[in-house]
């Protein structure tokens, strides 16, 4: 494929990259994360959508100021070489831990639902090999994979039918039955479900039509918000408040309600099919991490990809300090909020920084 060209992503690529990277494992558990708000949580995804759309503005604006630079390069330009590299190293570590966290949460889910009581070392290894295979095709091949996974997983929405039929629409009212604290707990836990759109600042230089990127990114964002919204609305209709609080993956339980004459336990099929969504998410993050290592070492090399994948494998399969590992994988998502706000800070720095002749391009 055309690996040498820089500008490779057209509008469909942008839409589906944004859309598919957002949908990861956290969607499956979102109704549980938002459960502190009780039944009033069902409109929260819409609110998250608005927040994410607002957060997109500084990201795109910054991208338009540095049309040919990824965020890694922007750091070096704004903070100078050494501080920039330091920030990039921190970013790289953050991405590696995020990848490890996503992988480990998904693989654990597979172990619980599909491969009961079996070792997950080799499935994980094969999963990572698959990711590396996708990433080695470049960002465009990731975008194409996103498209195909969108098409392949779209029909999951049909399985919500049983949840809707057995559910009770009156659960959706009243709208504002929560306290301030409950609202903040829910948003703190839930906002991470929409993480992933911030990656656009890394593949922004590859977009062909950068002026319209905001529009396309918003379309992609709202498609996945629509997905998330459907899941949490049906969960609210179907489950009791107690169930929402105590069932870890409500969406999987929704799938369990499906009754077909030839197939039961759709959740097994669902969770294994979900690998497409996880693959696209992890592939995008891994691509970014690889770019990060490239920019830190100042030379793009294929081996960087394998190094990062190996580090991720070790992180997930690390046999010691399981508690620390758990804690790290949980807490790393809070760093995502810093990532959300970081571009705003960069925008201010960019405005305040004295202009050089080469800086604006």
């Amino acid at each position, binding site marked *: *494929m*055309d690996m040498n060209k820089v500008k490779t992503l*057209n509008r*469909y690529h942008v839409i589906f990259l944004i859309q598919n990277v957002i949908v990861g494992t956290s969607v499956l558990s979102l109704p549980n994360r938002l459960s502190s708000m009780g039944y009033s949580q069902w409109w929260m995804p819409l609110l998250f959508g608005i927040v994410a759309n607002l957060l997109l503005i500084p990201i795109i604006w910054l991208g338009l100021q540095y049309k040919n630079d990824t965020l890694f390069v922007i750091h070096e330009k704004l903070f100078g070489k050494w501080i920039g590299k330091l920030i990039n190293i921190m970013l790289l570590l953050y991405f590696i831990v995020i990848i490890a966290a996503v992988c480990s949460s998904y693989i654990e889910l*597979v172990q619980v639902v*599909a*491969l009961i009581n079996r070792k997950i070392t*080799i*499935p994980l290894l*094969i*999963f990572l090999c*698959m990711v590396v*295979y*996708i990433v080695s*095709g470049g960002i465009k*091949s990731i975008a*194409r*994979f996103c*498209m*195909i996974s969108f*098409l*392949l997983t779209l029909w999951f929405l049909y399985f919500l039918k049983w949840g809707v039929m057995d559910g009770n629409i009156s659960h959706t009212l009243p709208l504002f039955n929560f306290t301030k604290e409950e609202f903040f707990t829910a948003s703190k836990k839930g906002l991470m479900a929409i993480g992933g759109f911030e990656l656009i600042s890394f593949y922004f230089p590859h977009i062909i039509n950068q002026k319209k990127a905001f529009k396309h990114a918003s379309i992609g964002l709202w498609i996945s918000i629509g997905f998330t919204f459907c899941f949490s609305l049906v969960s609210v209709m179907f489950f009791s408040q107690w169930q929402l609080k105590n069932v870890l993956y409500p969406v999987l339980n929704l799938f369990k309600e499906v009754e077909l*004459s*030839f*197939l*039961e*336990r759709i959740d*097994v*099929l669902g969770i*294994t*099919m979900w*690998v*497409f969504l996880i*693959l696209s998410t992890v592939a995008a993050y891994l691509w970014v991490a690889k770019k990060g290592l490239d920019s830190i070492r100042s030379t793009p090399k294929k081996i960087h990809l394998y190094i990062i994948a190996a580090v991720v494998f070790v992180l997930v399969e690390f046999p010691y300090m399981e508690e620390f590992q758990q804690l790290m994988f949980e807490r790393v998502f809070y760093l995502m909020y810093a990532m959300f706000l970081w571009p705003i800070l960069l925008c201010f720095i960019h405005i305040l920084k004295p202009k050089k002749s080469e800086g604006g391009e």
Partner: protein
Amino acid sequence: MGIPIEALKSKLAGIEDAVFKQIETTEDEVTLIYFSSLVDKLTLHQMVIRPLSEGILENSSEVIVQPNISELISAITEGSTVVYFPKQNVYLKVNTFSAPSASITVTDTESTVIGPTNAFTESLETNLSLIKRRIQNLNLKSNNFVIGTETHTQVTVLYMDNIANKENLDIVIDKIQNVNHPGFNDSSILQKLMDNHPFSPFPQYHETDRPDNAVSALLDGRIVILMNNSNGVIICPISFFELFISPEDYYNRWMTASLLRSIRFFGFFLTIIMTPTYISVLTYHPEMLPFDVLLNLQESREKVPFSPLIEVLFMELVIEILREAGSRMPTKIGQTIGIVGGIVIGTAAVEAHLVSNTLIVLVAISALLSFLPPNFIMSNTSRFMRYIFIFAAGMFGLFGQMIAFAWLFHHLLTLTSLNTAYMTPIIPRKSSDLLDSFVRMPAKFLKHTSGIAKAQSKKSPPVEKEE
């Protein structure tokens, strides 16, 4: 000037069918030089000897103005007759190639119930005529090449000058010129040498022996490559989906065509997941089946001592062996042995408790499904892919199958045919492609050339820029 006849004689020494024939005419004693294996006696008489005796040979022949030895030799190996006039020291060349060739027959590999049934033959000129009599248009252009360092095989590249994409044409010509291979028995070898992804199991060029297929490809702006001595012609570029399109789709009513086409396409995916799903459900996820179905299944494999993986592998390999034996055996024995062998082995295997009844049904259906693609290479590929899925399912159940699927889709997405992406409905996109996809719309809607051809014709809306 001039080459002595002795030089030719020494070059052709050791070739028993090289004939040097002396003929006395009124003015001179001329020598005819030709290969008796390539030139029919009657043709020789009609084309050379009679005109020579009547003194009108100059009208039907070509004078070799400045003869050099290699030109003469290549004329003789092509099947021409070289006539040498010693007095004037002049060489004449008469095209007398008349080796026996098979007549036009009915296609074996791509048969259809309705529509034309002619198949290409192994003569390049007959094949060209089969196409040219269907497209009577000056825009049908051709380029000739000679490839094969030892065999000197003639290759013709055909295209519609007003439709075909010139970039594609350049790529094809470039690829053919850079082919370095001693010999070609069939165009499929050339096809493999031109592949962008030689390690892929999927065919990246369409090979057909139906002239109507080649013609509709030409009209869509594709490029068709014909090779001498090969009854398959190459069509490029092609997309994954097109390998499931039979020309009969366009001769049928549109609803029937759409139904059959969808069965063919989804059949490909069914055939690669049917038996693997049997493995993964029985080995890893028995809870996925409703109780009654599970009971049925368990009853049928109650006495089977093997794991589902071994059971499936055994049965799939048996089917594969039957198919292979059937195609290698002489035709007369082949059919009977194939059918009888299938039934005997099938029932006997169940009665011997080697495999379950259910599995026999699944294997039979998936074997039939694998023969649905009109492109035979594709049907072979689908059977090969099934083994990948069988092992993936044996190792990790449904999870393994999904990973294998992810691999399959990603592989298909990265494949290219003639530097054009292979998965047409997804890339390159053109909305009019949808009219001729799973649903084949009535003929009056099918005005546009397809996206993958990137045709220059005005009738087609522009393709989304992406390659």
